[in-house]
């Protein structure tokens, strides 16, 4: 089970012949992800790791059946690639690319909303349903099929916490990287709603960071809807100064908005336990799930 991606996912890789695209296609294939085709304009007719390459998504989908795409196309062309996937009927698009202009991201999200598609990212490690499908760049050995749904705005910090869950034999149902940019396809609330309906997910680890107010809104949602599964949160950036981007384009405190304190307070007010250290997330979940 898990959410968004699973055994039935058949993906194409856009930008498959680039260094990153080719490298991660190999790793995804090794993990067992069904990659049916790839695209790179001008490279049609070749193959990469046994995967046929086409010039356009349209052509790839004439020859193969696919329901997802993962994009490794460089930032200036990434929005165009996402639009191409959406227009050709792909309903799940993972945008790995970092440094996509906000204006481009806004246009992609508007189009996705219109056609009812799901965008993951941009600037995301991707999504993994352990044991079933990995559409992303995360180190696979850290993950193990299990009961905790993970949703996060960061990459490496997610691996840190996922490794803790794996060590404690809790494992993960699905791990979703929302992306580190200000405008991304999914929100914490979108993913919580999906985890609520997923029978494999027994609890949720939510990993937020400074910038924006989506964590605060998520806390309100959890309290108001009496979210039925236990949620543990970790918020990175307690020491971040205002006005500085902490690595991610979206991780910035503007004036008084977007601090770790307001997010932590909001979760505590909503009755969500907030971990002080990354390793506490697994410890708290272990305790909660034993009850």
């Amino acid at each position: 089970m898990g959410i968004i991606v699973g055994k039935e996912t058949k993906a194409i890789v856009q930008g498959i012949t680039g260094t990153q695209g080719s490298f991660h296609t190999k790793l995804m294939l090794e993990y067992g992800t069904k990659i049916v085709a790839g695209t790179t304009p001008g490279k049609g007719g070749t193959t990469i790791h046994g995967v046929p390459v086409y010039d356009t998504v349209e052509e790839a989908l004439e020859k193969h059946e696919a329901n997802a795409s993962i994009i490794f196309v460089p930032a200036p062309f990434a929005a165009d690639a996402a639009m191409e996937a959406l227009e050709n009927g792909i309903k799940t698009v993972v945008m790995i690319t970092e440094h996509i202009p906000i204006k481009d991201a806004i246009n992609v999200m508007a189009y996705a909303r219109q056609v009812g598609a799901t965008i993951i990212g941009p600037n995301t490690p991707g999504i993994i349903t352990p044991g079933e499908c990995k559409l992303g760049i995360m180190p696979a050995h850290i993950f193990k099929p299990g009961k905790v749904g993970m949703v996060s705005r960061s990459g490496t910090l997610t691996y840190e916490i996922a490794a803790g869950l794996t060590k404690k034999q809790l494992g993960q149902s699905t791990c979703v990287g929302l992306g580190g940019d200000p405008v991304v396809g999914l929100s914490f609330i979108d993913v919580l709603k999906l985890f609520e309906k997923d029978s494999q997910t027994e609890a949720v680890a939510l990993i937020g960071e400074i910038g924006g107010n989506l964590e605060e809104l998520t806390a309100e949602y959890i309290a108001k809807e009496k979210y039925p599964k236990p949620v543990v949160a970790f918020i990175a950036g307690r020491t971040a100064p205002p006005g500085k981007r902490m690595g991610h384009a979206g991780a910035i405190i503007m004036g008084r908005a977007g601090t770790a304190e307001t997010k932590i307070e909001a979760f505590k007010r909503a009755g969500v336990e907030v971990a002080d250290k990354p390793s506490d997330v697994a410890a708290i979940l272990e305790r909660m799930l034993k009850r």
Partner: protein
Amino acid sequence: MKLLEYEAKEILAKYGVPTPKGGLATNATEARKIAQTLKPPVVVKAQVPVAGRGKAGGILFAESAEEVEKVAEKLLHTQIKGIPVRSVWIEEKVNAEMELYFGMTVDRLNKTYVVIGSTEGGMEIEEVAQKTPEKVLRFPVNPLYGFRPYHARQMAKRMGYSGSKLSTLANIFYGLYRAGIDYDAELIEMNPLVETSEGNFVAVDARIIVDDNALFRHPEYRERPLEGEFSPQEIEAAKNDLAYVKLDGDIGVIGNGAGLVMATLDAIQLYGGKPANFLDVGGGAPSDKIMAALRIVLSDPNVKALFINILGGITRCDEVARGVLQAKEKLGINKPMVIRLVGTNEEEGRRILAEVGIQVLDSMEEAARQVVEIVRRL
């Protein structure tokens, strides 16, 4: 990238937004010459990319060209919030009947732009929104259709305008929107947009922040050297494609991944220490990038000890170890170092470091605790 006031005004002027008559000077003589072409009284404004210039002494008034020369001389030798003033903008003073606010920024929640208008201009809009939220109009833009002239008229109407003023104002609003879109602005605002006693509208101050990720579409700003608001370390880091932020503590930090590095800083603080910086080497950093990172962090004289926290995915631990080794040889690092290294090629990384007697830890929290302890004992 934060544009300077005069750059923002030049852009807005191209889109039909009236701005006060003025000119740019980089020395006092130039300032006097510009003032001679203007009608006094005039305003002399330090061109630095910071908000709140007025309160910081960066905006001065003058009654004559001679006075402008003196005032400009003074401003050009000062720093505003730590940033040296390299140029001043001199413009005719505008008599304000009303001060409005109009701007556009990114609405992260609704994944679109939001146009914001208020009749309470002249102060920070966040402040107005907090004190009198009813006086702030927010209009989310539908990205598929954009902000249209009739939306601009609706905004002007809701702000209480009618007749010819409504049309004039709507044209200004629409101009700002188009400038914002064309220049990939994360933020574009006129504050205040002044309604003069003669019934005209003039943008007296303007701000534009261009999305750094869109600079490939705006080559005129792309090649500009970073200075002023950035520390030497931040500038050096940008050149090496590293994300660095200077903080005020004494423990130098290097890690991979923005979230992990933020969590590392937090862990240091949790154990009672103070981080000197944020530095994210990104994914898959080769050894020379690790060395550059070490050089930058160590160039901060406040750094007493180093904490390297790597969780290898695409980043290989052996490359990190080689970078540390190279840096140790070439830079002669003599400060204590705590290294946490797990993930891809971990054994090889540990072996390389063990050969030179550097111990490697598994747990980032244990490592954070140790580095804090080391600094405490120094």
